[in-house]
């Protein structure tokens, strides 16, 4: 055998060995005979650890299915593309807001038959969390961990402004008055803000709900310029009008990331913020000495019936269309929905449970001192979920842009919302027309 042939043979052998070794390294340790269920999830850190504990517990609990949890960035788009490519995961952990769009795109399968088979139904859940996965008469998703929002306030800043830290604002008038007392301006420069409607900025689209507004009629009509929404945006604009648009923009630009010690709330730059149940995790990690508390978000003084408005969202589990092991995938989802599975997960992520029945031990051992408040708020009839519209991402972008224009005092609230209405209604009509054209619109 000449040298060249030997070298070629050697190269081929090395290549083959490399492939074999890499496969051995990355291949999951699937115990023989079990069905291998691939589960894509977005989480990292403690959230991923909590779900890993549930997955491990499920894998130990039986000997027929092995779930492999893979953390995937941008999981929504990747699931969509993998589904389009015919090779989706068996289970995907998406966001509640994805349900309508993904269901309309036929990217996820209804879970009705499995739910019926295993007796999973609405009565076992806090209504808003069941509704998030329920779309167009079908169950498309079941929850993992939920979240509701409340007003978080810095008790130390309350004290320094001679406010009673045990008497947080109950109405928006009180909120504005407290905010004005806490806000510090030196040489025209905002040093501390009592409250900023743009912080943290995740519900800029939804302030209308606080005033009793709604974003669509549940059928075919967009209601962006509903009078209550306009009133909400007028309240928002009162802040830049009072403190100066440029001054607030400059002040906000100095804030760090949400999950960092430079977070405006944890850094005592903003005294009151609408925040979710997860805030406790950030505070314990980045600012453990912060003296804070949570309370329901204030309501308009003339609308006591709007007490308890909270924005609810949840992470969900879905089975993408074309999943290879849908039955086994649902077995895992069912395990997560069980009370022990759900409490293990929610305790790990330090959130409340989406289930209506929770063990006493869960409440007793939960580290977040305000966890019952978040669960109670989620049960409120004023609990708000993202509109179940396939057009929601586009609509949301329009509302966020209107919010920007109002905060920059470029437009009046009425102008900004009229423009959203004028842009979105034709898109809604077009969407309904095309769905009808496909013969699929309800």
């Amino acid at each position, binding site marked *: 055998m000449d040298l060249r042939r030997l070298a070629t043979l050697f190269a081929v052998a090395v290549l083959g060995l490399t492939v074999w070794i890499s496969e051995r390294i990355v291949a999951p340790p699937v115990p023989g005979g079990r069905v291998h269920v691939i589960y894509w999830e977005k989480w990292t850190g403690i959230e991923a650890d909590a779900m890993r504990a549930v997955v491990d517990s499920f894998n130990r609990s039986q000997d027929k299915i092995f779930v492999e949890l893979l953390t995937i960035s941008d999981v929504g788009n990747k699931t969509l593309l993998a589904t389009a490519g015919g090779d989706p995961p068996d289970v995907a952990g998406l966001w509640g807001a994805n349900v309508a769009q993904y269901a309309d795109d*036929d990217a996820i399968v209804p879970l009705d038959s499995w739910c019926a088979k295993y007796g999973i139904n609405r009565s076992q859940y806090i209504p808003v969390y069941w509704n998030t996965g329920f779309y167009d008469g079908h169950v498309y998703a079941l929850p993992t961990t939920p979240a509701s929002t409340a007003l978080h306030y810095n008790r130390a800043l309350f004290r320094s402004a001679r406010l009673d830290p045990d008497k947080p604002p109950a109405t928006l008038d009180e909120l504005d008055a407290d905010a004005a007392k806490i806000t510090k301006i030196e040489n025209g420069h905002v040093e501390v803000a009592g409250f900023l409607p743009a912080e943290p900025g995740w519900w800029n689209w939804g302030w209308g709900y606080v005033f009793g507004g709604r974003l669509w009629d549940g059928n075919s009509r967009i209601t962006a310029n509903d009078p209550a929404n306009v009133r909400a945006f007028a309240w928002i604009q009162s802040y830049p009008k009072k403190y100066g648009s440029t001054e607030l*923009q*400059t002040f906000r*630009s100095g804030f760090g990331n949400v999950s960092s010690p430079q977070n405006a709330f944890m850094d005592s730059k903003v005294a009151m913020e609408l925040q979710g149940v997860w805030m406790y995790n950030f505070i314990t990690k980045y600012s453990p000495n912060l003296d804070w508390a949570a309370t329901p978000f204030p309501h308009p003084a003339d609308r006591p019936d709007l007490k308890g408005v909270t924005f609810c969202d949840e992470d969900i589990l879905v089975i993408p*269309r074309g999943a290879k092991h849908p039955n086994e995938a649902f077995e895992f989802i069912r395990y997560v929905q069980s009370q022990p599975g759900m409490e293990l997960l929610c305790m790990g992520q330090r959130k409340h449970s989406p289930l209506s029945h929770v063990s006493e031990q869960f409440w007793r051992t939960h580290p977040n001192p305000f966890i019952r408040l978040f669960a109670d708020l989620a049960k409120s009839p004023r609990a708000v979920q993202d509109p179940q519209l396939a057009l929601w*991402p*586009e609509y949301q972008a329009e509302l966020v842009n209107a919010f*920007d*224009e109002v905060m920059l005092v470029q437009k009046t609230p009425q102008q900004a919302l009229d423009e959203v209405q004028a842009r979105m209604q034709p898109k809604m009509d077009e969407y309904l027309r095309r769905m009808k*054209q496909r013969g699929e619109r309800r």
Partner: protein
Amino acid sequence: MKNRPYAQAIGAGEPLPERGRGPAPHRRSALSRRRTATALLFASPWIVGFCVFLLYPLCASIYYSFCDYSVLRPPVWVGADNYRTLINDEVFWTALVNTVVYAVLALPSSLVVALSLSLLLNARVAGMALYRTFFFVPSLVPQVALAILWLWLFNGEHGMINEALKVIGIRNPPNWLGDPNWSKPALVLLGVWGVGGAVVIYLAGLQDVPQHLYEAADLDGAGWWARTWHVTLPMLSPVILFNLIMGIIGTLQIFTVPYVMFPGGSPARSTYFYTMYLFDNAFIYHKMGYACAMGWIMFALILVLTLIALKASSRHVYYGGG
């Protein structure tokens, strides 16, 4: 075979078959076919890649631009609906105007700065290799890292740029990232920082300017400006045209940096560029057909602008070779 001349070995020296002679054409074509097959085999990785990853998607995107297509459902033919809707889509026009305004601001400034820098870096000064490296390095920084870095530099509260402006007496420096009037200029400034690639191309062009032209200019008593205006720039004109066309293509397709620095094109869509809206339509709103239509409109726009640039430059660009 051992002593066969190389030309003959590769077939170049074989006698041409005479007309009417039997088996020669057959042998020739068999050999020729084999060689073509071998050549195609070697080129096949590129050919397959080109067809699968470029040609097919290109052709498919033309078709999809006339369809209601969300990627997961089969495309439904809607004729020119997507194009008609685009014409009436306010956000489309906002994104297009933002992009053109950015291109109009960024292109000339980048061209002028890159050209000026290359003229300076072409001087015979000690340590020039080091200076050239300093100016080239920023163009190697990955786009996302670049965006994060400039987020901090432009920070309205603690940014180095505003601190520097305060030092020179500007009491209220702009809020680059939060003020719609300053967000695009901020991106232009950032673009100028990354002109290293264009500088290198200019420098290569400057090396090719014949010395005898400078000597002739010297004999005519030309100063620095006259030499630059009458010799350097004309001889560099093909390179300037190249950078102009690449600049048109690049600025009209700006995406990564504003996508990272200005989520959603904030503030108030002042940095919402064409490609960002295209991306949102394709991957956030799941309107792939609509996004394809946008892609083809952008292609047409770039094509037209490039042809205009080529046509308009024909009288001003001097090609040394003829």
